[in-house]
């Protein structure tokens, strides 16, 4: 009973804060709403006894990703009012589509396929089951391939970020190590016959 109440609280809050992300006039407020949304999602994980996922979500998303986000947004000057230009103009059609899509989503989700009878009830594993260990075990065995590919994706993200942001400024002086190492006497000293 209490659990159900918490579920609806976390769920409702995450929906509301999700709407806040989209509707807030100030970009900073949007980010704050998003952080709040993540906290609620994390709460939902905790309700499922998935404490590892809950903590990871806060650590990585709230602790790292969103902070980075805030830095970027603070450094850029985004005019939110400009972004929202034409909002009303699109509202009737866009709103209509959104409403109908939502009805369809609800119809799909509530069609009974995700009901307990179909999916089986969620069982509490209890304290003796170590969530972190279980995830680690399955990640390094059955889902090893996916795990490795994910690692490569991260590597590519890293390469991409460097490639797209590296700048060689013309006015700055650089030290070219390899050129320094490769240098030979002839390059530097010229014998002049007097």
């Amino acid at each position, binding site marked *: 009973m209490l659990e159900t109440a918490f579920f609806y609280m976390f769920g409702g809050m995450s929906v509301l804060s999700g709407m806040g992300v989209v509707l807030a006039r100030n970009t900073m407020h949007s980010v704050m709403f998003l952080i709040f949304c993540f906290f609620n999602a994390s709460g939902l994980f905790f309700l499922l006894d998935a404490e590892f996922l809950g903590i990871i979500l806060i650590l990585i998303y709230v602790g790292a990703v969103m902070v980075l986000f805030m830095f970027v947004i603070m450094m850029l000057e985004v005019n939110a009012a400009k972004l929202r230009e034409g909002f009303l103009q699109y509202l009737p059609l866009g709103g209509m589509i959104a409403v109908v899509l939502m009805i*369809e*989503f609800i*119809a*799909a*989700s509530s*069609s*009974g*396929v*995700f009901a307990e009878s*179909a*999916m089986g009830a969620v069982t509490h594993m209890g304290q003796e089951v170590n969530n972190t260990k279980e995830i680690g075990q*399955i990640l390094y*065995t*059955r*889902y*090893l*391939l*996916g795990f490795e*590919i*994910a690692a*490569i*994706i991260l*590597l*590519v*993200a890293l*390469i*991409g970020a*460097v*490639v*797209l942001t*590296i700048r*060689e400024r013309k006015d700055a002086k650089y030290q070219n190590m*390899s050129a320094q190492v490769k240098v030979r006497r002839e390059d530097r000293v010229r014998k002049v016959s007097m």
Partner: protein
Amino acid sequence: MANVTFPFPFPDHLITLMPEMIVAIMAMFLLLFDVFVAKGSKTTAYLAIATTVAAGVATWSLQGPDPLVAFYGFFVFDSFAVFSKFLIYVATALGMILSLEYMKNEKHIGEYYVLMLFAMLGMMLMVSSNNFVTMYLGLELMALCVYVLVAYQREVLRANEAALKYFILGALSSGMLLYGITFLYGVTGSFDFAVMGEKLAHAEGDATAAVMLGMVFLIAGLGFKVSMAPFHMWTPDAYEGAPTPVTAFMSVAPKVAGFVIFMRIVADLLPALQHEYQSILIGVAVLTIAVGNLAAIAQRNIKRMLAYSTVGHVGFIMMGLIAGSPAGFSGILVYLSIYLVMTMGVFAVIILMRREGIQGELLDDFAGLSKVRPGYALAMGLFMFSMAGIPFLGGFWAKYVVFMAAVEAGHLYLVLYALLFSAVGAFYYLRVVKYIYFDEERVAFNFIESRPMQATVFVTAVTIVFLGLFPDALFELCRQALVGLV
């Protein structure tokens, strides 16, 4: 899916993934290696090309009569995957060859080839996947690399813009894809195509709405990658903004991977929903064919024109999916193979057009080519005729096989519609020929010749003619490749 066993049977798995291993290791090695080579050296590029060849050799040596499965069913190596992998190798290798001269003056060119290899790796994983986990991860790996490749010329404004657009919309499409997968997983409780297909066949009446929703989002997400209308809108911008070799690469390889996944899904996951997926694919195909062929007419920039042309071709390829028969599937493979050759050839010629102060991307830049370089002109003419589906060049057979398959499956009207639009399409292909042969030179041609480019043009042109005259072998190969899938 097999149970998890200990100790882990490592060697078997790794041998099955030999081509992927080679590519991954070489990509990382080249990343380090590039630091030590002199500026302007093409060693990295050649090593990257050699890697595709090595992957080809590895794939060839692995193939046997029976499909191999590794990593608890997350990876399959069947004849279907082998065929599509070879298409991907060829597309990647040609993309790299086209880049040799074009990207010569870019700084930090080493990472460019590394990213191409990683993109290839992503596609290899995609075509070898029979489940959503491997498929999605492979797809993201490929997409991430392509986003960066599009933006590679950072000082070019339109490249930045194109990449950003592509990235944002790509993220949206990934979201849609995942959302669709979630629903299907919710209904079936599995990620494996075959298992899911089995479950879907026995799904109860309640499940319909959820399954439909999952399927629509799945098709939308994948449709984005292969440029189906209305999910195609990024295509012209990205094609125009990207460096031309990247355009060539991304107009072929991801389409191959995307359609292969589509075929696996249609064959394994959706047989129970044949009626539903056909009806929406028909709608999408009708729109795709019309948009591609009509919008191309108004283009002055040949890369933009080819972008719409790709959309048109995708519409035609979809007819094979709609047919859903072995003939349709082998038709798709035939189409993709021929499309690969034509497209690579066309882009090679476009790259050759780049000269002092001119991008060579406008139709006007081709005016009078026939008088200066009859060879290039002839090749370009052949490609254009082939794309228009004029018999008896490769492109004709490509259209022919998918249309026939669709007719056999009872979609006569759709084929008539497609025939009509392929006649419309002939107009803009022919217009290029008109510029080349019937117009006066407007800007002096001042070619930067390069052997690999010329060789590419020559080989692709000869292949198109050869396939036009003797398509039989290719048909047979594509039929063989389907053994085990359908």
